[in-house]
């Protein structure tokens, strides 16, 4: 057998393994999938919201926070990082309405969310710290569904599903699907203690856990991933409250989307490099999370390499074939070319695609999303075939930027 079919089979095996892994976890735990523990404790909560040019969304974010059905919100600290739009004016207007709103205006622009968050952490007084992005909108029941997990003294952080707020444009709809799939996967990872991120749109930390790691890494472009890895390495558990959510503005242009994903990838690479000595150590961080990230990296790069190899050889073959056909006066395309004889790898590929499709349908069903609507029927195949295939290209761009030191947040 040639090398390429062997590589293809390896990819199939890994994909099938991950699919079975997630399915087994789901079917073992589906009865308590949406459970959130109740609590009688009254945890006081301080919110920290970094804001840079969030004039369009910050008012809605603050309103959503204060609308949360929870009686023990101690303070909402917004750190304005020298916004150049009307963020400051909006916040000053909100200050008149919300007495617990504390506004910190940085004297100089700090350049990234992590630095602003750390500024905010200096003022927290609550038992728990909620981190919310300036363009995110927590659900009304979010805190009630999250705080109960902290009755377990080993829990250091709780996350929730992050869902797309804007779902009008095609790119937004694809991200909506993606965010749902990611949320489902993250909940499954909770059952094997492998949650690797408590995302910035809404994450709740035990004060001791977050301040114990010194706050957020200001050099990391995905400080939420880094913080999660840090608290994991110190033995803290991470949980997810699936029965609530936070919605967040997703990029509505491909250029903005690309930059966001590049930033995520660079942050991931930074984390892998920073925690490289934790491989095989520190519980699930070294046993699963880091190997999972590294394997994804390699599979993406090798897959991209093979893609380009096949593309180039195909182009060369087609060019040569067309050239000879023109000389010979034979048809470039004939009916016989459409009589396909699929190999068993083709059949396996079709089966894998169908399994992926079925898995996505299961996710939508499990999370009570509408399945048989026009947008999902059209978007799901595009998501599986095209959207996911763009990732390796972003990865290459990210590696380039990471290697040559371009770590700008904005």
């Amino acid at each position, binding site marked *: 057998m040639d090398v390429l079919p062997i590589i293809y089979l390896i990819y199939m095996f890994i994909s099938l393994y991950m699919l079975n892994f997630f399915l087994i976890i789901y079917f073992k735990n589906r009865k308590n999938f949406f459970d959130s523990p109740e609590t009688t404790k009254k945890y006081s909560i301080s919110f920290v919201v970094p804001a840079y040019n969030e004039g369009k969304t910050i008012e809605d974010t603050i309103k959503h926070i204060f609308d949360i059905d929870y009686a023990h919100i101690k303070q909402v600290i917004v750190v304005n990082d020298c916004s150049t739009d009307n963020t400051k004016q909006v916040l000053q207007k909100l200050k008149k309405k919300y007495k617990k709103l504390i506004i910190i205006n940085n004297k100089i622009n700090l350049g990234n969310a992590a630095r602003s968050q750390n500024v905010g952490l200096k003022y927290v007084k609550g038992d728990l710290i909620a981190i919310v992005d300036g363009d995110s909108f927590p659900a009304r029941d979010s805190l009630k569904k999250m705080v109960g997990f902290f009755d377990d003294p080993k829990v250091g952080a709780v996350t929730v599903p992050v869902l797309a707020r804007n779902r009008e444009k095609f790119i937004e709809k694809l991200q909506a699907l993606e965010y749902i799939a990611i949320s489902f996967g993250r909940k499954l990872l909770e059952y094997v203690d492998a949650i690797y991120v408590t995302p910035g749109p809404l994450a709740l930390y035990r004060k001791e856990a977050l301040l114990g790691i010194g706050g957020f890494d200001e050099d990391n472009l995905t400080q939420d991933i880094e913080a999660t890895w840090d608290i994991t390495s110190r033995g803290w558990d991470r949980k997810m409250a699936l029965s609530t959510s936070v919605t967040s503005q997703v990029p509505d242009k491909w250029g903005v989307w690309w930059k966001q994903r590049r930033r995520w990838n660079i942050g991931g690479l930074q984390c892998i490099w920073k925690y490289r000595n934790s491989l095989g150590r*520190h519980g699930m961080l070294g046993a699963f999370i880091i190997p999972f990230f590294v394997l994804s990296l390699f599979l993406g790069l090798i897959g991209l390499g093979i893609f380009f190899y096949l593309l180039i050889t195909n182009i060369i073959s087609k060019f*040569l*074939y067309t050239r000879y056909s023109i*000389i010979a006066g*034979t048809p470039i395309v004939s009916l016989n070319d459409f009589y396909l004889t699929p*190999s068993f790898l083709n059949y396996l590929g079709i089966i894998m695609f169908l399994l992926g499709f079925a898995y996505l349908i299961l996710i939508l069903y499990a999370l009570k999303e509408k399945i048989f609507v026009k947008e999902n029927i059209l978007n799901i195949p595009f998501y599986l075939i095209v959207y996911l295939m763009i990732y390796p290209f972003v990865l290459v761009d990210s590696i380039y930027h990471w290697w040559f030191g371009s770590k700008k947040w904005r």
Partner: protein
Amino acid sequence: MEINLFKSNKNVFWEALLVTILIFVLGVIAGFVLENWRTSNIDYLYVNSELNLLDVKVQSEIYGIGDFDCNAAINENINFANRIYEEANTLEKYQKASMLTEDLIVSHKKYDLLRTLLLLNSIKIKKECNASYSNVVYFYRFRDKNPDIIAKESVFSKLLVQLKEKMGNEILLIPIGFDGNVSSVKLILDNYNISENELPVILINEKIKIKDVETVEDLMKYFD
């Protein structure tokens, strides 16, 4: 603070591995079954073709005892060539799709030998009967990965199909693949001064060698 490797569902990693191996092995077995089924189809066709060629050869021997019926011999030969040309197309398609087994490669070589016998029989009949049809033998590289060779061979194949359509039974079209491992085919190539590096080559009436791509109209001029 105690760090536990597995908090719950700790066997899920091994369970998933077991299930994956099971499904994967079943998939590979299904692949073998598919390819074996295709090989069986080809072998069935081959056995019938081999029988037909033997029949043609025996008929030639019988005619050698008495009067040689050239028309019958020529028609049998041409019909047989047309049929195994179609079987060759099926074999090529199955072979391109074959990933797990090499059985079809063996079948391919058996067909190449069969077609070599067909060529030799045709040369004999032409000589005995002073037949007017032309032998058009297409020697090609078998399992070559060079894109230039593959492109050229694809175009040659289409060219010969067009030639056959235009000239019908005036030509006997015999494709013979060569991968260096079949001695008889190597001998035939040596006999006609065709080196392996020159392939693909079209040989017309054991004399005219065509190595470059030409139009079907230009090819037809060689038969005038």
